[in-house]
């Protein structure tokens, strides 16, 4: 019986250490919003939203994308879901900070998440994000009429840190 108790104690101590490490883990996923554009790679940490070929006047936009026309520009927008999780044992981190930045500078078009205009410098989307709650961010790309037709690509880098 003593041997079993010793073995149990060792197993519990070992697994407790292992689970405590997991308890401090944070993770991030990008998910297609039910009313938004379907993301390739949805549910993982790298995803792509393919808007395809769209134009300011006429034509169609993909399902989940909204097009609006302004006085001097036009805008495409779609919601994207972000899910940040933490290990269940980490009680001291009750929220997270989420920032976003463009990988490449774009001096012509305007890239936004909700009301935050993105640049290559990280902008804070939330300083008090709630773990395990899917949060919807509306992405929008505003293109001036003066821009010639052509491909527009960029990458948004989301950074999560525990608070």
């Amino acid at each position, binding site marked *: 019986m003593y041997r079993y108790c010793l073995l149990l104690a060792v197993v519990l101590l070992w697994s407790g250490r292992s689970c405590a490490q997991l308890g401090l883990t944070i993770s991030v996923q990008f998910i297609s919003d039910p009313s938004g554009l379907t993301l390739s790679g949805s549910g993982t940490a*790298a*995803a792509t939203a393919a808007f395809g070929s769209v134009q300011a006047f006429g034509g169609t936009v993909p399902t989940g994308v909204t097009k609006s026309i302004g006085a001097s520009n036009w805008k495409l927008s779609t919601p994207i879901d972000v899910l940040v999780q933490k*290990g269940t044992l980490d009680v001291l981190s009750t929220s997270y900070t989420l920032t976003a930045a463009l990988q490449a500078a774009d001096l012509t078009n305007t890239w936004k998440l909700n009301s935050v205009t993105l640049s290559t410098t990280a902008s804070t989307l939330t300083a008090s994000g709630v773990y395990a709650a899917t949060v919807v961010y509306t992405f929008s790309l505003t293109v001036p009429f003066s821009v010639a037709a052509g491909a527009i690509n960029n990458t948004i880098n989301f950074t999560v840190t525990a608070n």
Partner: protein
Amino acid sequence: MRSNLRLISMLFLTGVFCSAAQQQAGPSLALSPGVIQVKAQPGVSSSHVMTMTNLTGTRFRFVLEAFDVVTREGKRVFIAAGETEGGIARSAVFDPPAIELNPGEAGNVKVTLTIPADPKVRAVVAIFHGQTALPGNGGLMVTGSLGTLITYNLSARMDIRAGAPTVSPQTENANLMVSEQLENDGQEPAIPKGTLAVLKSSGELIGRVPIQPHRLLPGEKFNCEVEYPHSLRSGKYRAMMSIQHEGGVQTSSIEFQVP
């Protein structure tokens, strides 16, 4: 025989518990630890190992970067290494400075940080900056980065300032809410936690609600909102907020009436 069965059951349950925790993350990137708390002195170096796990089906590349975390107007701001006087991030040495992880692979990075003689900051984030974007047919690519928050307690000078509590009365659709503005007025990070107690005007305790711990860097503010989950009958009450941290306990109260 009975003790053998008991032992096997406990081992099984332990395995199930750990396995469930491991599966929680999903097909994402996971960084451990998310937070490191250091107690040290100025001039001291410390090394910390961080583990990034790639749970996606894509090969990921990360470049390591350190930022100082400072508080401006009550909120945290990340400042690039070397741009803050008395910053710690400028001393960061990552080993290795970049990693690539295959699907399912985990990798360790050791960061060594040296606190300057006259440090002005008390926190750094070590960020695994994701460099991988899925190739797509034009448009928008998104990629994730994760950072470990490293906080430094260099002295015992902790002070949390609690504002006057306010009450949002209970309604048919909402419970009573008591809120209080907390501000870290000291020089060190603190993790205040506490209890909301609701008492009758006679002093009789009606109920208590624990206030979850919340990390506050020096200068940081937090609106601590606590929901009392039970319905109160009409009468006069007192809500007492007790905030506890390493620097002591602060109690404040407010009287209110339920019509």
